[in-house]
């Protein structure tokens, strides 16, 4: 049984760059982002000025840092509802360990890294051992962490927020890493933007250019098929949850070194924001499809909408309504563009 070999080169170049572009998961969200940007650029003063963009990017980055691993996890087919409060837990652990037990803030930061990674590992481990839906498991972790955040803070610090550690050794260097401001061309940019972009680059590389990325797509798109061909499904999922924890640690340290005193009730509700950013960015809620760059675009859309409404000085009572409406429009545009792109390929 033979087949005539076609001229391979000619066939391969037919997958033109444009066609490749149209097939990317983040395409629709990029169009949505442009639309939102143009809208607020027209409607709001100060939005397009450098300082305004810096503010928007900061807002996007604090969501974006977490949206990246949450998107990866979603591509892998799972959810993490504890992601929001885990950030706060990480900050609280750093702060209280530093204050109560040590002389140098970096020790607290290191302990917090281990503890937060352990939390992520716990989520993944329970998932792989019990087979319960991740929605339920992480809902449980979310509630437990919320309680622990409050309980431990009150127990150790006496109030619902931690004591200030700004005068402790190591604070300034830690702050330089996690919460500093970089001046570029006369405009101030928060360092979280760099962390965010770095995470997006790392996650994209992992997803698209490593075998772990192939496994993530497979576990999300067809877990049993993946298992049958020898993909380490359990290890992949635990790894994804640990990734969320790592980003939570980064975001938590930023929170701590930016504001010094950590409010124990923070983070509740953010987990949905991260998921929204990932979905707007083109990640399928059912798993197996999406991108890290998409999550960044989703976070950007969120940041632009959130701050754009403030810049536009719309009636604040209707704020939440505007936010929801804009997000819905961005998502619909995203879906429509993707449909059109798929029809032409």
């Amino acid at each position: 049984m033979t087949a005539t070999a076609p001229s391979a080169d000619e066939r391969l170049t037919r997958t033109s760059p444009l066609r490749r572009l149209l097939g990317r998961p983040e395409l629709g969200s990029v169009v949505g982002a442009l639309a939102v940007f143009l809208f607020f650029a027209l409607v709001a003063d100060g939005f397009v000025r450098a300082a305004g963009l810096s503010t928007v990017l900061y807002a996007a980055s604090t969501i974006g840092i977490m949206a990246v691993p949450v998107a990866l996890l979603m591509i892998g087919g799972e959810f993490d509802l504890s992601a929001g409060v885990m950030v706060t837990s990480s900050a609280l652990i750093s702060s209280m360990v530093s204050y109560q037990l040590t002389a140098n803030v970096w020790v607290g930061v290191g302990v917090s890294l281990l503890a937060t990674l352990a939390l992520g590992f716990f989520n993944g481990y329970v998932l792989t051992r019990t087979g319960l839906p991740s929605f339920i498991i992480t809902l449980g972790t979310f509630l437990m962490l919320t309680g622990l955040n409050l309980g431990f803070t009150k127990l150790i610090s006496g109030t619902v927020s931690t004591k200030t550690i700004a005068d402790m050794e190591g604070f300034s260097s830690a702050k330089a890493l996690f919460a500093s401001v970089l001046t570029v061309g006369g405009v101030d940019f928060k360092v979280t933007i760099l962390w965010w972009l770095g995470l997006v680059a790392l996650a994209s590389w992992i997803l698209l250019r490593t075998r772990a990325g192939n496994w993530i797509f497979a576990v999300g798109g067809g877990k049993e098929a993946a298992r049958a061909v020898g993909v380490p499904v359990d290890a992949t999922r635990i790894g994804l949850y640990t990734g969320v924890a790592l980003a939570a640690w980064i975001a938590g340290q930023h929170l701590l070194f930016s504001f010094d005193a950590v409010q124990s009730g923070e983070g509740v509700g953010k987990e949905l924001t991260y998921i929204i950013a990932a979905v707007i960015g083109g990640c399928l809620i059912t798993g197996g499809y999406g991108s890290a760059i998409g999550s960044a675009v989703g976070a950007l859309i969120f940041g632009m909408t959130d701050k754009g409404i403030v810049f536009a000085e719309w009636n604040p009572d209707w704020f939440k309504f505007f936010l929801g409406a804009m997000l819905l429009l961005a998502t619909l545009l995203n879906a429509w563009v993707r449909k059109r792109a798929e029809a032409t390929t």
Partner: protein
Amino acid sequence: MTQPARNTGRTPLVELDDVSKHYGGVRALEGVSLEVHAGEITCVLGDNGAGKSTLIKIIAGLHRHDTGTFRIEGEDIRPASPREALDRGVATVYQDLAVVPLMPVWRNFFLGSEPRKGSGPFKRLDVGLMRRTTRAELLRMGIDLRDVDQPIGTLSGGERQCVAIARAVHFGAKVLVLDEPTAALGVKQSGVVLKYVAAARDAGLGVVLITHNPHHAYLVGNRFVLLKRGRTIGSHTREEITLDELTRQMAGGSELDDLRHELEGEGL
């Protein structure tokens, strides 16, 4: 019940010798024996509930047998995972679990065995190699895909099966186990799949073909093992049996005759 014919002198690639498997109180397989030789196709036939899926899971390394012997290339084994069976050269293609629909063909092709280049933290997928190889291997089996980037879910059922078979052949499988590859396919697509199965056999692999379609089995099979309710009710080589007899045995043999008498007698 005839004794399984033994091909003297040649070690079977895969051999099940009086294997049983129980799930709790349920007797899924009881005293089943079969042989698979290189360059031959052994068909396992039986209706639903006959124990075919249990059989395939044991050979694939998903489950462990309880009694009897499972040999790969003459060596007694009890594989602990699908990975182990794969490493020993047994590649299984499942009816519904063959591929991940949303992933491109080239990613599916190398799933679980991704080639990498570079070193240390910069170890990355050799994407170029993966794309080229996928096209070439599919071409070797007669599929000419213009775009290996398309999600494999956009391929027809038959094409997907063929990708899975081509994948198994490429990765040096010595034994190919196919779980009802033509069950969900129409006549033409079934033909396509069976041709590739034959191509795999011609390439020197041993094939275990699970099916409930005796016609398909007879088109390509060298040996036939019939299962019913976990037991072997017949084991023949191609020389020993005709298609009609195979079909009759599969459809119930004497039980079918009884049913016919019953229905005719009642004047229905």
